[in-house]
């Protein structure tokens, strides 16, 4: 009896989970999700950009690395726009306007990310100070 109950629950769960998938199928197909641009130079350009865009439905994967339908749609968008001659950075800006900064793996230079860009410089200065102190002292002793 318990088994049967579990089976029913599982079926119900499956039914509840499937509508988004079914809805995906109803959307117009995104031909460039799994198709490359014929011109290799343009495809390389698109690939470089796609590697720096985040798949919003996955954990830490770029849209170039993901099976998620949304990533496929975004690949389609990127390839279509690149093929139409748009500038990659313009496409990034357009995507950021739609989805926010989160979508770009390249951090945008804004007040909120200043510390991120300052960090390497600070580390560099610290490293230089540390090394200088270290070697000056050892020279003094030598």
């Amino acid at each position, binding site marked *: 009896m318990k088994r049967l109950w579990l089976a029913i629950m599982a079926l119900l769960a499956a039914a509840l989970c499937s509508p988004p998938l079914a809805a995906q199928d109803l959307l117009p197909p995104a031909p460039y999700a799994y198709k490359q641009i014929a011109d290799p130079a343009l495809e390389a350009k698109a690939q470089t950009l796609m590697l720096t865009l985040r798949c919003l439905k996955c954990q830490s994967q*770029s849209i170039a690395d993901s099976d998620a339908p949304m990533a496929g749609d975004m690949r389609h968008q990127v390839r279509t726009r690149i093929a139409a001659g748009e500038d990659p950075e313009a496409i990034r800006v357009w995507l950021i306007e739609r989805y926010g900064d989160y*979508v770009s*793996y390249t*951090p945008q230079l804004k007040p909120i990310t200043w510390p991120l860009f300052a960090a390497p410089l600070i580390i560099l200065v610290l490293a230089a100070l540390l090394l200088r102190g270290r070697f000056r002292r050892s020279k003094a002793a030598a």
Partner: protein
Amino acid sequence: MIAELGLAMLWIAAALAALQLVAGCLALTPKGGLFMGLVRPVAIAQGVLVAGAFAALIWLFLSTDLSVKLVAGNSHAAKPWIFKLAATWGNHEGSMLMWVTIMSIGGGVVALVEKRLREETLVATLAGQAFVSLGFYAFLLLASNPFQRLPEPAAEGQGLNPLLQDIGLAFHPPTLYVGYVGLSIAFSFAIGALVTRDVGPAFARAMRPWVLGAWIFLTLGITAGSYWAYYTLGWGGWWFWDPVENASLMPWLAATALLHSCSVLASRGALKAWTVMLGVVAFSMSMVGTFLVRSGILTSVHAFAVDPTRGSFILALLAIYIGGALTLFALRANTVTEGARFSFVSREASLVFNNVMLCGILGIVLIGTLYPLLTEAMGVKVSVGPPYFNPVSAFFAIPMFLIMAVGPLLRWRDDKAARITWAVAVPAFLAAAALLGIVIFAPAVSVLSALGLALAPALALASLMPLRGRNLRRTPLPIYGGVLAHLGIAVALFGMASESAFSTEKLAAMNPGDVQQVGPYAITLKGIDPVAGPNWTALEATLAASYEGAAPIILRPQARTFSNPPGNRTESALSTRWNGQLYLVLGEEAADGRWQMRLWWKPFAPLIWYGGVLIALGGLLALVGRVARDVKRLVATDKIAFRRTAQGR
């Protein structure tokens, strides 16, 4: 019954850890000689008991005892036994028990074999180890009891995430954990030596095998994890700068620095404060890694805020141990001298430079990993990914590689640059020529890849230079170890640069009979068939791949569907040659009935992981060399002691 037994053993082990801490502290007081002899046996007993508790949990998983909450939530009777075993640590509670088990066994082994250190320092070390493990016992027993029973046994288990049902991943977490926990032993040594003001070469020699061992396991764990991501995620990526990956990379960077500075301290008596500091940093990074992976903070800061118990617990432990260690360091800073001096051109100086560069990379990875969490807490979501990490870490890594080529050739303490001119000039010339060749023949290659491709062969050559003029049969193993590890870095670097510069990708919708060209391969789709495994069903493509017109080989990528719990996983098909790897993935059926195939040719990509294995092998050689010498010395002193007692009679 088994579950209760396991829990009881865990409680007793925790009590023994408390005893170990108290006895250790008392033993260090002026009149505490009485307690001195107690610490070692208690540490050994604690290790044995907690190993018993872990064995009990393994037993529960292997027998799929569904009355235990953890088993019911993470396992399933229909799984192959190896994944039942892996499910033991494929969850929060089990992995924390594994952490404590490895830590306490480590402490037991230290208690059993360590004879070089002064007894006070050893006792202080074991007390430190008990202090650290007590925190984790508390975490287990109060916030994540793995042995908890269900009020009513479950009818069936919920299974293990299909992504984790892979032999590579089954052994990936334990490998990393051994690494993390090895660093906790190094940390305990640092504490012990600080407490007894005993930071010197003997301390470094006692600590070194643990650091080496931890580092070998971390190297293997990272390499295996990267390869696993590469072949299961199905898009050819092998490193994502994912916080979970960074969580394993950060301890590795710190351990690499610690390893080198430990060597300086052991053989030259220099870099005392620096070594102790790195010991603290390395374990902090293990704890940060554990916090990131175990607190749930990565899915979302908000998910963490909803149930902060576990995260806060680990964070509190982190604050106690690291804060405590730093306070102790500050109190003892005046007694830890800098140690022996060295000049600007010396092996020590090059090691110091590279340690600073490693810490620079560590800082970048740490900030890049934590920064998005910080902004998310403030309400802004940002992403920090490869476009940030790659160039910024290369900025520190490239000078480091250059010094890595030179450093092992220099003498300790003081050297003349003129002495090694030739040994440096040849690789430098090679690098310059390679760079020129790339600029002329492959101008489209990105700057970082070009630098990597040019530097790697030169680094490989330079890494062999320490062997020149040596009698190869009398060269000590640790020297070979260093050579091999540095060679591994060069090999991996070449693989990474080549993969990113020269990979070719082909996305195609294919009918049976269609042929597609990717790199040097012609790929024919023969057919698509359903197949079934023990707990999955799959669609399997049969493809014939012919390398430049040679007889074709058959490859079978699959798209698997798991039932318990439901989930999908691509099973890519790989074919490795000396000069690269063919990588095939079966996608979905397109609307017109054709099959989506993803085909890659990745020149020299396998070198990435071969390099990782070489690095670990280098560590292993060094470890074997060191331990063999220690054992020899131990036997010799035992013999002398034995003779003395014999003569005394």
